[in-house]
């Protein structure tokens, strides 16, 4: 393991709770602002963490989003109890979505979630088991 993180923050995310979906990523944004982190990095973290949070809200039963800040990078871990991803390669394709129609009607599940996370982070790791859940770990380098 590399050095210890300077900051660790964790938020619980409830599946199906659209009303509060987005609060965890807002919280992350405000922590980064207080630390004086560069606006362009805040923007990337903010977009990627929102996508990860909404994935939990849309697909999973429950989950957690953890923020770890190191001297040289930011790591977000989004872990959920949920259906898992059957085909990661497909899920990484822009526009591919398994969201049911009522979710798509709400403007979510456009199949941009994972591609957006990948696009806005320096590294993305996906661990998933169908029927059990998914763990996303993504990192943004500082400077």
């Amino acid at each position: 393991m590399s050095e210890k993180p300077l900051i660790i923050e964790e938020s619980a995310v409830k599946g199906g709770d659209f009303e509060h979906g987005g609060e965890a990523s807002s919280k992350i944004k405000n922590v980064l602002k207080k630390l004086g982190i560069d606006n362009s990095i805040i923007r990337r973290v903010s977009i990627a963490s929102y996508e990860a949070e909404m994935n939990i809200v849309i697909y999973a039963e429950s989950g957690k989003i953890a923020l770890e800040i190191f001297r040289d990078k930011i790591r977000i871990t989004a872990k959920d109890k949920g259906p898992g991803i059957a085909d990661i390669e497909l899920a990484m394709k822009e526009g591919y979505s398994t969201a049911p129609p009522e979710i798509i009607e709400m403007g979510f599940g456009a199949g941009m979630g994972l591609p957006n996370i990948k696009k806005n982070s320096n590294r993305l790791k996906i661990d998933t088991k169908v029927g059990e859940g998914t763990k996303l770990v993504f990192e943004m380098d500082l400077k």
Partner: protein
Amino acid sequence: MKKESYFHSIRISEEKCLGCTYCMRVCPTEGIRVKNGKAWIQDLKCIDCGECVRNCPHSAIGSEVDLCTSLTSFDYKILVLPSSFASLDFKGIPYEIILKRLFYAGFNEIWEEGIGNEMFLLNTRELLRKRGEKKPIISTACPSIVRFLQVNFPSLLYYLSPLNAPKDILANFIRDERKKYKNLKIFYASPCPAKVTSVKNPQGIKRSQFDYVLGTNNLYNKVLSIREMGEGKIYLSGRVGLSMGEKSGEKNFLKNYKVISISGVQEAKNFFEKLEEEKVPMIDYVEVWACPNGCVGGSLLPTEDINIASFRLELENEKRMRKYSKSVDTLKISKSINQKILFLTEDIKPRPQYFLAEKFEEAARILNETGKILKKLPQIDCGSCGAPSCRAFAEDVAKKEATLTDCIFFKNKQ
């Protein structure tokens, strides 16, 4: 942290302040603390929104304006009246008579800021018409909002309109137009502390073309106590300009575009959070005011109720509607206007005040410390410690700007 100085116009009277914490709770940048029974402003955080002025139950907070005594000189004096002036309760005295009393008070010309509003709106529409402009464009009409962005949302400064604020467009115009008067002095009657500050410490321009800035409340008292009338030149705004004295004035004029209209600093804060997170629909233009209902809600207006004030402004507006939508003067001016006077000339720089420390490692230490301290606090935000919330207090303690025993609950636990 580095000590910098910054001028804002809000002043707390030490004599009148009872340390009641009303102001501290409403400050949108958490920039007020109560220490030793008195409220103190952290100057760098002040955006002159006037929430503290409006909410002080003891009239202990005001704005550093110029006094009406500056009117007795022999200079050629021009007064610019804000659109919200027409929303005031003149106790049955017609607006025309009020203007004549102002001439008696010593002004040679009176211009309504609405003419500046009209020039501002015509050019805003031009900007929106051009394709490829970054969207949404955020209005520069409210100086408190400009300062709010500098202090709390610097990443959004990118969206600010390049246009000068309406009153500054007008002041530039008058200065050019009346060059022949050597002793010309231009006065502004400000409805709020932010516009006072925008004259004394402008952002986006090198210097303001206003020489003096009066408080509308002081001018109101003066004009109601004058009985005589004088003569002078009047330049009235049309309907379009006058309606910018309240919320939706911009939106109603820019009706071919997608415009959101926001008033109240808390509402503005919520919106900017969402805009920063890119969670807003497609919007072309953001009309946004720090005061409730827009300028009619200005904290230097002697207004007993903002909804009645809005209503009075609309009545005055109806009188003009039959004549012109835009002022004849605006129409004349826009034909010959020097484009330069329309635009900001300086960068509006970020001035973020939410960093916990300059250095990242130190900021991280403070943040962790804040979390630990916060767990010990009751989290009921009672304000007795002199900070606006338990979290703000925990931050102050972590920054060593307060001590834990300032919390009465913590004292009791010991």
